[in-house]
C-alpha cells in the first residue's frame, strides 16, 4: 500500500491493529490512510502561513 516504508513505534502499531479491527477497518493500512487523510484535510483547511501572518502582524506589538 505505501510507496515507501514508514517506521512506526511497536506499541503504537499494536494499538493501530487493535483499533482498526474495533472500528471496522479492513486493514491497519486503511485505518492509517484514513487518519492521515483527515489530518491533511485539517491542515489544508487552515489558513495559509501567509494569511495567518497578515491577519496578526498588523498588530503593532509583533513583527
Amino acid at each position, binding site marked *: 500500500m505505501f510507496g515507501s516504508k514508514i517506521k512506526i513505534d511497536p506499541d503504537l502499531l499494536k494499538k493501530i491493529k487493535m483499533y482498526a479491527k474495533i472500528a471496522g477497518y479492513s486493514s491497519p493500512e486503511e485505518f492509517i490512510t484514513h487518519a492521515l487523510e483527515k489530518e491533511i484535510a*485539517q*491542515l*489544508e*483547511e*487552515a*489558513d*495559509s*502561513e501567509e494569511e*495567518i*501572518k*497578515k*491577519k*496578526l*502582524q*498588523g*498588530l*503593532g*506589538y*509583533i*513583527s
Partner: protein
Amino acid sequence: MRTLRALVMGCLVLVAAPVEADPAKKVFVLGVDGLDPDLIQSYMEQGLLPNIKKMVDKGHFKPLQTSMPPLSPVAWSTFITGMDPGGHGVFDFIHRDPATLFPTRAESGVRPGENVSVGECKQFPLPWPLADEGGPENLRQGRAFWQILEEHDIPTTVYRMPANFPPVESPGKSLSGMGTPDIRGTPGTFSFYTDRFIPDASSFTGGEVYPVRVEEGHVRSTSKSKQVKLYGPQKPFLDLSTAECRKKNELECKESREPECGKLLEVPFDVYVDADRPAAMFYVQDTEFVLQQGEWSDWVPIDFEVLPVLGSVSAIGRFYLKQVRPDFELYVTPLQINPDNPGAMQISTPESWSHELCEELGYFYTQELAEDTKALTHGVLNGHEFWDQTQFVFDEQKRAFEHMLQGFDEGLLFYYFSSIDQNSHMLWNYMDPEHPGFLEDRQLQRGIESLYRDLDALVGRALEAVGKDTTFVIMSDHGFCPFYWQVNLNSWLVEKGYVTLLDPAKQGQTILFGNVDWSRTKAYAVGLNGLYVNLRGRERRGIVNQGREHEELLAQLERDLLEMVDPRNEQQVVTLVVNSRRDLHGPLAGSGPDLIVGYNWGYRSSWKSPLGEFPKQVFEDNTQPWSGDHSVDHRHVPGVLISNRPITLEQPALYDLTVAILDEYGVPKPEEMIGEDCLGD
C-alpha cells in the same frame, strides 16, 4: 428534570430582590488607554495639568491595579466583565489553536461560512437559511457591565470600548473599538505606492508596497494591466481552501504580476503628476482631488463591487502625497469599514448608530487602533508625519467627545481615547536618553507631554459639562514603561531544553514553529506573555501527561523563569509568573496559556517570539521606533483611577471599578464578578 429546573429558576426569580436603579443618575467614565500614574504625577507637579490637578485635589487619585498580563484586550475585558481572564477567556492579544498550533487573534475571530465548490477553484457562499453564513465573532465571554445596566433600564452610551467587536447585543448605543478590523480583515494594512526600490518591502508587516512607474505624468502599476489599484476584502467567489487552488492562484499571479495575486477585490484609481509643480491630481471612482506634496486628503469613499448590481463593500481611506520627485511616494491609510454603510460588518448597536454618528460628525476612523504605528516602524511615514497622522485621529476623537458630552443627559457614558497609548509606544525613545533607540527631536521629545496636556484640557471641558452630581471617573487599562530589551522566550526554551528543534542549524529561519520537533518538545511560547505546555490530549502532538507530570513541569518552568538573568547586565528578567489554573478565577482558567510570564521593567517579549520564531540570541536590544510598552509584570505598569468620588479601597483594581459602576445605580454585584465596590458616596 426539566420541570424541576424550571421550578428552581422560578423560585430564584421570586427570591431575587428587585433593584430600583435611577436612570437620572449620571456616570461618566473617561477611558484613556495607557494613561500612566507616574507621568500624571510628574506632569501635575510641573503644573502642566491644572484641570486634572483640580479634580485630584477635590477628589481622589490612585494607581489602578491592572490585569495579568497588562495587555489592552485583557485589561479592558477585565473592566468590561468584572472578571479576570479565567472568567472572560481573553489571555493575550494572541492565542493558539491547539489543533494546529497556529496563532489566532484572542478577542475576536471570524466564524467561517459554508461555501459550495463549483469547480476550477471557484466557490459560492451558501446563504442563510441553507447554512450559517459565518462572519466576525466576539470571543470575549461574560456579560458586559452596560448590558447589566440596560437590564435595569439604565440608558448607556459606550464609545469605542476595546475588546468589543462585534459589539455585544445591547439596547443601548455602542461603537466597537480595538478588535475592529480594517476592510481587509486585518488589524490595519496601509498601502504605499512608489517608484523607489525598497529592498525590505516584502518583509513589511501591517502594510504593502506597490511598485509603480510615472509614465508621462501618469502613475502606472508595474503589473501587466498597468492599473494602480486599491485593495479590499478577499474575493468571495475565489476558492483558496485547498493547497491546489492556492498553487493555481500563485501561478496566475506570477503571469499577471498583479499585486495581491488577484485574490482581493480591487478598485482602480488614477493619479497624474503635475509637470511643473510638486502636486498630483487624483481620480478615485467619483471623487476627484488635488494634493500638494506633503498634503493629506480628507476621507475618500471607496466601493468594492462584489457582484454587479447585487452589492458592494463600502470603505473609506485617506491619501497622503508624501513626495512627487525625485521618487513618487503615495501613502494610503488602511481602508476603513465605512461607518456610514458598514454592511455585514456590524460596528455599532443599534446598527444604525454608526451611520447617525457619520451624519453628525462626518467620516471617521473605525479601525481598531487608527494611529499607523506600522508606517512609522517601516519608515513609510517619518516621526513628524506619524505625529500629524495621530493628531488627525486625536482631533476626530475630540470632536466625537464634544458631541457625546453635549448629548449626555442621563445614564452612563463611556468614552475612549487611544492617542496616549499609541504615542507612548512610538515616541518613548524621543523622551528617554537611556533608550537604545534614543532619537533627538525638539518637537517629538515633548509629544507625550503634549498629549497629556491636551487630555487635561478635555478633562476641564468635561468638568464644566457634566456637573458635580455626576460621578466622573478617569481610568486607564495600564500604564507604561520603556521597552529597552527583547526576550526571545522561545529561544530561551530551546536553550533550557524545553524545545527541541528538528534542525538546530536552521534556528531562526522559520516562523510559526516550522522547525520544532514536537515529539521532543515540552513547552512553547505564543503571544506576548503566554507559555503553553505541549500537553497530551490537548495539543495535537502533546507529549506531557496530564496530572502530576504536567504540574511538575509547570513548577520547574516557573522556577527557571524566575531565575532567568540577562548576562549582559546581570538583571533578573522575569519578576512574576502566573499559573493560570492556580492564580486565576473562573471556568476558563485552564483554557489559556498554562503560565503567564511577567517581565521585569524594561524587558518585553521579542518581536519574533510571539508568532513562534526562534532567533539565535535570547536577549537583544530594542532599537525599533516602538519603544515604550507595558507587556510586563503588571505590578510595574498600573493604570490610573481618578474620581470626584472617594476611592475606598487601598489598592483598587480594574474589576473593582466594574462593581463600583454597577453600585452607582444600586445594581448588586453579579456572582461571577470578583471585585468589590471601590467608590464611596
